[in-house]
């Protein structure tokens, strides 16, 4: 006869407030099989756990039910406690009487009745529990980082530093990501390339890091410790091993109409190009849309000119298939397109630019070679207006933009304003803001210097309309402090647009079954306690893929993700989930209905001699590979005879729970 112990938690007043915990403990005493039933203030505390271990030893319990908070919170805690006391950790059941009972029912009497039923259901489930032993699965000692921006690079460097192989898959021809496009960085104003390129070089020189550029991940299968990823390396038409990056071909290439994505399409580039000087790998790439040779078969100048003979027009996409133990998502972000917000006239006026476009205009390697000129007529702008929160902080049900604050715009606008005022003292800078958010170290001091030392005019109010008049841009906005409407004839208008996840994020999210929120940012396992892990085991989040953040935070999170990866790869084998499917060979028909619905291909078939009461014959029976099975249970329903059952959530257990609940 089973000896079950029931422990009802008060959770301070969280449960005891609206559930009579004493009555629950009392009611459970009369349930057949329960030999010990008690309630205590904090079951998850050390004292609470000691109560459990003592009870197990004293009453020789062979199963415990803890009526407390959600199993997603403390199931592991109580399993470890039971294991420490010598009880099989899977003979522990949790009744969720906090999130799903005490917190949502005001009436104490009703809450108590429900808590009793939930506890009895847990006892009924426990009675059908069987001791389970966690299996093990091997760990491939290699990590995959999707995205080669600062986040991906930092994570890769840290993981490689710990001695593990890392593959970085970058969709653009070069790593460096968004940060490579920046001119200076706040709050220290050091040049973005100067702090990024050493990291890029370090990544390329580290023999543990393998950079797969101009490639994207196509398919991911498997699970933590043994993922299998298929990577499509797009054809560069340039042999990476031969090209020396001399850029002779770029000068000779006759097709000059390609839009330079790196410079935000503000100038043109040849069909064969290297995105920017410090690109890693410093190898040219041919844009198939622009290259005359690839489109019409004529030309081929770059091949003639190339001393290293690196050009190869016949190159095909290459599919690489590799095993990984862990995957880090570092897909980064892109600014939103402000054209739908037509009051700013972004689409109509070339002189209305986004902040990232301004970064390129001020950058020495930018389209204007570092001098700030108006994109329309190339004149020097004397009046510049910055507009904050363009497309950020909008109400969800108005399709006007993103509901969240993009976090970095206040700081980089202060940076831009300061740099412009410093380089061109005769230019007036106005900034329309709702509130300036400077939440980091030396951030507010930085903003005050922009206002006090460099005389940037901050106007508390918003711009209603930007209209072109003559060669000027009439910016009309409100100045709430002076309670007046202001009209500024600006030469250049800069929009601090909201940022959104990289378009590739959604497809990668589905591939990894990593859950994403409605704004396509990756959802973290726990908002406060596990910010760098995805709920899917083995998937980690680094950088803006998880939410808006600036460079310092991105690097911090990248290293955090790296430490999680190192923690995982350091293990020789992983403890696998024992609640996996199992087939009863006596009843299996071998009809392979279960194999069709298994998402992981964990089921194979063998011819085996089956011995049972009155039966001895060779039959085709299903076999589940416990390392691959993740315990979803799809096969148990596809199996008509009930031969396939799921350990930990067996048919009998769930039916026992249903019976108790419907009593």
């Amino acid at each position, binding site marked *: 006869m089973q000896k079950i112990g029931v422990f009802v938690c008060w959770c301070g007043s969280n449960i005891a407030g609206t559930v009579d915990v004493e009555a629950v403990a009392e009611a459970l005493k009369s349930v057949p099989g329960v030999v010990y039933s008690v309630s205590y203030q904090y079951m998850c505390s050390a004292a609470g756990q000691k109560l459990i271990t003592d009870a197990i030893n004293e009453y020789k319990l062979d199963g415990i039910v803890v009526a407390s908070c959600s199993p997603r919170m403390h199931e592991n805690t109580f399993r470890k406690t039971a294991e420490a006391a010598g009880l099989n950790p899977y003979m522990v059941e949790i009744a969720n009487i906090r999130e799903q009972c005490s917190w949502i029912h005001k009436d104490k009497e009703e809450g108590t009745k429900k808590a009793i039923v939930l506890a009895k259901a847990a006892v009924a489930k426990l009675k059908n529990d069987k001791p389970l032993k966690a299996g093990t699965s091997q760990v491939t000692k290699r990590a995959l980082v999707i995205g080669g921006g600062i986040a991906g690079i930092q994570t890769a460097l840290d993981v490689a530093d710990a001695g593990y192989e890392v593959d970085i898959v970058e969709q653009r021809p070069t790593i460096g990501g968004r940060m490579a496009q920046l001119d200076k960085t706040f709050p220290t104003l050091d040049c973005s390339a100067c702090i990024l390129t050493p990291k890029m070089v370090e990544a390329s020189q580290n023999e543990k890091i393998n950079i797969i550029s101009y490639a994207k991940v196509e398919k991911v299968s498997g699970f933590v410790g043994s993922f299998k990823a298929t990577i499509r390396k797009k054809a560069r038409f340039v042999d990476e091993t031969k090209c020396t990056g001399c850029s002779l071909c770029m000068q000779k290439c006759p097709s000059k109409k390609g839009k330079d994505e790196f410079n935000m399409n503000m100038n043109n580039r040849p069909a064969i190009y290297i995105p920017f000087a410090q690109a890693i790998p410093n190898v040219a790439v041919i844009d198939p849309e622009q290259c005359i040779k690839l489109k019409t078969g004529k030309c081929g100048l770059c091949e003639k000119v190339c001393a290293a003979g690196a050009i190869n027009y016949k190159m095909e996409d290459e599919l690489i298939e590799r095993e990984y133990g862990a995957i880090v998502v570092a897909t980064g972000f892109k600014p939103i397109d402000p054209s739908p917000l037509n009051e700013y006239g972004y689409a109509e006026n070339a002189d209305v630019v986004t902040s990232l476009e301004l970064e390129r205009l001020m950058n020495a390697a930018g389209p204007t070679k570092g001098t700030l000129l108006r994109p329309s007529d190339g004149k020097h702008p004397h009046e510049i207006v910055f507009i904050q929160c363009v497309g950020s902080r909008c109400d969800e049900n108005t399709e006007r933009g993103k509901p969240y604050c993009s976090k970095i715009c206040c700081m980089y606008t202060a940076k831009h304003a300061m740099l412009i005022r410093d380089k061109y003292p005769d230019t007036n800078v106005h900034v329309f803001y709702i509130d300036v958010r400077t939440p980091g170290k030396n951030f507010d001091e930085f903003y005050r210097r922009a206002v006090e030392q460099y005389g940037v005019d901050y106007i508390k109010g918003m711009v209603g309309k930007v209209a072109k008049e003559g060669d000027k841009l009439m910016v009309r906005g409100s100045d709430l402090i002076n309670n007046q409407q202001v009209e500024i004839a600006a030469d250049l208008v800069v929009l601090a647009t909201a940022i959104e996840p990289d378009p590739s994020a959604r497809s990668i999210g589905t591939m990894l079954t990593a859950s994403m929120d409605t704004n396509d940012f990756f959802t973290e396992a726990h908002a406060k306690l596990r910010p760098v892990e995805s709920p899917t085991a083995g998937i980690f989040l680094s950088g803006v893929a998880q939410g808006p953040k600036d460079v310092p935070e991105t690097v911090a999170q990248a290293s955090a993700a790296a430490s999680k990866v190192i923690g995982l790869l350091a293990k020789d084998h992983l403890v696998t989930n024992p609640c996996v499917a199992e087939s009863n060979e006596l009843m299996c028909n071998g009809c392979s209905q279960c194999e069709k*619905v298994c998402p992981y291909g964990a089921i194979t078939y063998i011819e085996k001699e089956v011995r049972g009461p009155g039966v001895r014959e060779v039959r085709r029976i299903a076999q589940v590979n416990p390392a691959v099975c993740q315990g979803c249970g799809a096969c148990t329903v596809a199996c008509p005879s009930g031969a396939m059952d799921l350990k930990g959530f067996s*048919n009998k257990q769930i039916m026992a729970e249903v019976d108790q609940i419907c009593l």
Partner: protein
Amino acid sequence: MNSIKSRALELLSDGTVKRVIGWEKGEGEADWSPALFETAEEMNSFVYGDYAGSNLSKYCLKFNLAEGKTLVVLKPCDTLSFNQLLHEHRLNREKFYIIGAGCKGMKDENGRLLKCNACKGKDFEVYDEIIDDEESRKPLNVFDRMIGVAELEKMTAEERYEFWRGELSRCIRCNACRNVCPACTCVKCVFDNPASGVQSKAPVTDFEENMFHIIRAFHVAGRCTDCGECSRVCPQNIPLHLLNRKFIKDMNELYGDHQAGVGTEERTPLTSYTKEDAEPSVVHERGNA
């Protein structure tokens, strides 16, 4: 059709097959039953004709492991069931020599069989040899098999409930429908297994009757070839085919036409999916209340 008989006799005597599964005639005019013939002289009581309505593919399960080949005579609709069993790896194709027998529509003592009024065509899915004649190749004039289901669907929920309570209340749980069904071939049926939690032997309450028939229809959904044997053998004349055809109609409407036992594709509508499937609430919106 005695050319089938002579051909079977020939194959039995020259040793290619060890046994023949066919039909045998009893006293009554429509008193035909499936029979096993292992020796040549047993064969002279072998018959094939208008009363050979039963589907022999399920009997092959008994001889799947027997030594030597077995000859089985299958009508076009029976080959669908045989092929479905092949899809489920229940039968070893080499162990069977299949004669595809032409069929002009079978009958029993009270006329043409219900399943033949909705005949699904005269082509054989799997065979070693076909013995038929011109006349048996002509398609039968059939009505749309989903008429019965459509009529029921037009009724209000109350009428449907009364109709099914009337029909299913006559069920005596004799399991003839389960034991004859070529798709219901579990080694140990859920309803016979004490550990399954749903074991039941008698229609004690109307819930148990509903439960047995809903779960049975669900287990064969996607695999049922609509061979009509369940309704034919039911001693209480319950129109069980209306349950299976309802699933077939729904699956065809929602997930695209699928005839179980055709071709080599082993996936059935319930073991496959598309990302754009209809939501379960679609069931609540269509048709009348």
